Every structure is written in C-alpha cells, then in structure tokens.
C-alpha cells in the first residue's frame, strides 16, 4: 500500500513549512530511516526521515514551496503502486509498505491475549506482529524481506491462510480463528476475510446505534451527508474494537476522590533539589502500587468464568506520542522503591517517545494510569483495558479553596477517578482503595521508607 508522506508539524505554532530539498529522487529506493527531504520552519531546518521502506513514487511539492502541515508531500510505495488507494478493503497492501501511523492497540490486544483467550493468542503468536512505531527494526524483520513468505516457522496449529491474508487480518485486527475458510482444506481466502470484516463492521455500527441514543444513522450516511468518507486507519480500527469491547462487556463504575497534593509537591521539590529527579507521576505510580498491595482485588483480571489473581503489580502508564499512544509497563512495582520507579519510568517513557520500546515492555500490565493533568483537565473517566480490572484517571493539580478547621485555606488539589470492573470490584472496595491511595499521597513520607 502506498504511504503518504505529509508535511510534519514541527511546532505547536507551525501551520506550514517550506520544502527545502528532496534528498531522494522519484523512482529511487527508500529505506526506513533514510532522509527523504529537508523542511524549514522559521529559522530551523528538519531532516525528514522515512518511517517506511519502498520506492519514492511521487513528490507533490517543489523545493522552495510552502505546504500546509498535514498535506501530502510525497508518496512512498512499491514499484507497481499507483496513487494511494483510499478503499481499504479491496486493496491488499503489498508486503513491504508499512503505514507510518501504526496502531498502538497491539499492546491492547496483547492484554486481551494474556488472560482471556489463550486459544486465540496461540494462533497469532508464531507470526511477526505488525511493526508498530514503537518497535525496533532489529526486533522485527523488515516486512519487505518477508514478501510472500511466512517469517520463521509457519504456525503449526493455526488455520490455513496465505501470508498475505494473515497480514491483512492482522492489520484489520481480525482473528483468523473466527473466519471460515472456503478454500481447499478450509484454507482462508481473501474473500473469506473480507466477508468477516464486513460482519465486524456491521456489528460495530449496531453497537454505536445502541450506545448513542442520538446515533440514529449509521456512520456511512452521516459522513455521506457531509461529503467525504474516510477509511479507518489500522490504529483507529484497533482502538475502536478494543474500546467497544471494553464498553460493551465491562460494567464500568467510577469513584472520584480529591487529594491534597501540597506535601507530595514539597517532597518532590526537596528530592529534586537533593539531586533525585522525580515527577509527580512517579509519586502517583508508587502510591498506586502501595494501595494495590493493600487492596489486591483492584489488581485482578477478569477471565470470563474465573478471576485471575495477579501476583505482580505491573503498572502501565499511557504515554502520548505524536501519532498515537503507547502504554509502557513497569513490572513488579510492589518491590520497587520510589527511586527505582522514577528511574524505570523515566527510561521507559524516554524510549517510548523515541520509538525504541520493545513489545514486551508494552504487555502484561495489570493496572493502568492515564494522566491528562498537563492539559488542565480537572477530572475525567478512562475506559478499562481488558482484561484489567481498573484504570486510574488523573487530573491536574490546581489551587483550590478548602475549608480546614473551620476556615478557608488554599490547597493544591488533584482529583483522580478510578474506573472499575464491577464484576471484580465492588463500590466500597474501590472507595477504600482510593482512600488508601489518598492517604499515601497526603502522607508522602511513607513512600520514602
């Protein structure tokens, strides 16, 4: 599938950029990591790196010309590719062309595999996962080297399907176990897969109608009325599937508490001054781990007919990237000191942002923290990542007037909201978990011991 290269947004205040020069000419081979072009904004030039391999098929902006951020400036694809095809279902992406915007939901799906559906996960594991932006070249073979051939050993007990069909299935987030093959020996053909995608899409539309009262029209006609339709990117498709499933299956309830962070901020300042770099977020992770030790049910996973008791506390934190998000996981938080958590977190987030994180570091979470405080969000509710039992949504720390001992005082208040799976956790238990979390953060010295 041809990849569209767009004018990057190199600053919050950048609206357009000037294309200075093309470093590759049309028809030339492009390897992932090669510099494609040089782009200027203000008095800074950025070398534009290619995140995919293929052939530079087309350039749409001339050197010296301005282009609005987000507009397509070039196309990279395979030799036979023409213009980018907007129709996702009928065009088979040739191996080798990787979308630059890759789904973060692989790790979400990994989460599902870990506890709930061992049978399903087996069918996927022997294959290379799609290369996400967060993965290293070294760990995952370049797709073009795999053209037409399965990588490594063919899946032993898996369904019969060509590598092409497998690839398409992965990209669409379709489980081949669920697809009936109509080929010889039950081999799954591309048509079978497309049928299944259609079925899933229809399900999707039905769910939307059910959930949103006002959604009287299926998506197609809404977008039709307004003009253009947009195919779901792989990332959006995977996210849509995961959150719909979570929202349909998990009876969420939420509990919110406000926490006085004055002392936590003080501790952070003091540690920072004494040379231990620490973020408020590290304190939140540590406090979460402490509270999870006391209230272990919040750390459990739901597995249909049974509850999985996780002995390790593996806390994932949502890290936003330019084109998506990943949730790197700090494992074994119960045994880590604040300092260790801070170091590990710093390291993971740093690598996550540089796209150098391995898939192993994105899986196996038992609890997730999502922080939107830096956007000034006061409080919000997050959707649980199956099969986890809960997720903590953290808001901003703000100056608020509080009544203390009968008089009004200023305090640094942060609100957190726990979304919990009611099948695993009851209201009072969730409340007690938050009470402990609040106690720890309001007495941060306990975290230093």
């Amino acid at each position, binding site marked *: 599938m041809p990849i569209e290269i767009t004018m990057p*947004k*190199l*600053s*919050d*205040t*950048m609206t357009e950029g*000037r294309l*200075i*020069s093309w470093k590759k000419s049309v028809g030339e081979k492009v390897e992932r990591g090669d*510099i494609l072009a*040089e782009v*200027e*904004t*203000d*008095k*800074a*030039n*950025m*070398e534009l*790196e290619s995140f995919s391999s293929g052939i530079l098929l087309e350039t749409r902006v001339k050197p*010296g010309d301005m282009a609005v951020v987000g507009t397509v400036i070039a196309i990279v694809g395979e030799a036979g590719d023409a213009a980018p095809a907007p129709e996702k279902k009928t065009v088979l992406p040739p191996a080798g062309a990787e979308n630059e915007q890759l789904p973060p939901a692989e790790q979400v799906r990994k989460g599902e595999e870990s506890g709930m559906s061992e049978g399903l996960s087996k069918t996927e594991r022997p294959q290379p996962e799609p290369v996400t932006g967060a993965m290293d070249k070294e760990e995952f073979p370049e797709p073009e080297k795999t053209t037409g051939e399965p990588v490594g050993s063919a899946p032993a007990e898996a369904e019969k399907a060509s590598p092409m069909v497998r690839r398409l299935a992965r990209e669409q987030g379709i489980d081949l176990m669920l697809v009936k093959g109509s080929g010889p020996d039950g081999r799954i053909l591309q048509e079978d897969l497309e049928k299944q995608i259609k079925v899933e899409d229809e399900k999707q539309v039905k769910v939307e109608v059910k959930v949103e009262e006002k959604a009287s029209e299926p998506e197609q006609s809404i977008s039709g009325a307004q003009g253009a339709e947009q195919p779901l990117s792989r990332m959006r498709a995977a996210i849509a599937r995961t959150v719909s499933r979570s929202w349909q299956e998990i009876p969420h309830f939420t509990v919110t508490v406000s926490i006085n962070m004055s002392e936590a901020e003080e501790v952070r300042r003091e540690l920072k001054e004494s040379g231990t*770099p*620490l*973020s*408020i*977020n*590290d304190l939140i992770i540590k406090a979460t781990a402490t509270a999870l030790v006391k209230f272990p049910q919040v750390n459990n996973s739901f597995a249909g007919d049974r509850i999985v008791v996780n002995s390790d506390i593996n806390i994932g*934190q*949502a*890290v*936003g*990237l*330019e084109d998506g*998000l990943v949730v790197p996981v700090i494992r074994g938080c119960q045994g880590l000191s604040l300092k260790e958590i*801070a170091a590990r*977190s*710093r*390291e993971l*987030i*740093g690598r996550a*942002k*540089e796209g150098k994180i391995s898939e192993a570091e994105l899986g196996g979470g038992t609890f997730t*923290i*999502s*922080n*939107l405080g*830096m*956007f000034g969000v006061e409080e919000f509710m997050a959707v649980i990542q199956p099969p986890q039992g809960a997720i903590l949504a953290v808001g901003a720390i703000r100056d608020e007037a509080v009544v203390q001992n009968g008089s009004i005082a200023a305090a640094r208040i942060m609100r957190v909201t726990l979304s919990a799976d009611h099948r695993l956790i009851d209201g009072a238990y969730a409340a007690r978990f938050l009470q402990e979390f609040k106690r720890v953060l309001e007495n941060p010295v306990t975290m230093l011991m």
Partner: protein
Amino acid sequence: MIIKNLGLIDFNEAYALQEQLVAGVAAGTEDEMLLLLEHPPVYTTGSGGSDRNILDPSISAVRINRGGDVTYHGPGQLVGYPIINLARRGRDLHRYLRFLEELIIRITADFGVAAQRVSGRTGVWTGSPPDLAKLASIGVGVRRWVTMHGFALNVTTDLSQFSRINPCGFIACPVTSMFVERAGVGSLDEIKECVALRFEILLDDLLPSDSGDIIKTWR
C-alpha cells in the same frame, strides 16, 4: 549536559564534530552538549538560502543544513552550537528558537546591552522599529530531533564583512555588535562564561526534559 569551549576552530572542522555529536546524542551514547567557539572568517548560508543575497561574487558561502539565509562568522563573534535532544524536550522547533533568543537577550542584558525579539524575524535585535539592528543570528538544523548549528552573537565582530551580503536575506539589514552598543562591554571569554552558566538552567526551564511526565506530547 557538557559545555565545551573550543576556542578558534575552523568551520568545517566544527561542522564535522557537530555531525558526530548529533549522531551520538540521537543514539543516546552522548550527553547533550553546548559548543562555544569562534570561527576564522567564513560565510555560510542555509540550505534554503538564495545566492542573490551574496553581493560580492568573490565570496563562496558554505551551504549547510540549517534554516535561514547567508551570514558571516569571524573572530570576535561568539558562536554557540547546542546539540540538544528535542525528542525529550517537547519536539517543538519554534519553542527552541525562542529559547535561543531568550538566552541571548538575557546574556546581553547581563552586560548592559538591551536587546529584543522582533516578531517574524528570528534573531536578537537592538533598537526599536524601524531602527533595528541585528545583534545575533540564529539558524538551526535538526536531525532525528537532535539540534545542530545555533546562534552567533556579535561581540567585537568586524561588521564591515556583513556589507558584502544581505544578512539573513534582508536587504541592507543593519548589523550591530555588543561592542558597538556599549564600548567596554565584557570580553568574549567573559560572555562565554556567562552563557555556560545560564544555558542549562534556562534550557531546563523553557524546554524541560519530559521523561518524567506522561502524555506531554499527546496531540
């Protein structure tokens, strides 16, 4: 953060060193760095610069991977090349340019020279519109979000050299130096020392390293 005083160093030699350091910082094998130096006389131009801005045909400007147009470097000019990993500092090129401006404005203020930004004309200027004069030029190149090139602050620079070009692409753009603005201003070494003292603190202040806070770059 490592701050290196390279003294007087040939442009191409410093360029090669920068290339090497950028690769190291991008790979995580080198610390972020600030190189402070002077160049022997040389004209350079940004990769998008126009040759029409070189008025004297005998000049051959080195074309380099930075933003901006032609400029002059020579003795008496404090050149700073920060090798900074913006991937960890918010990935925002404009903010980085504003940081460099702020740094120079504070440094010149330390030595009693008032300077300012002019919107739409990156660099540091003295005077007030329309009588502006350019005190420092800025031009940056970024590879894998690691910066190279940087700023050039005229301290006792021979300003006549600028008359052979349209500095930064502006016709008849007046150029000034700290010495012109205030005779007896500190020496280049003193100013260098001041930059070394201020640089990291201001960088962390304006472009904090975000490895500790989550979802900062979520858009």
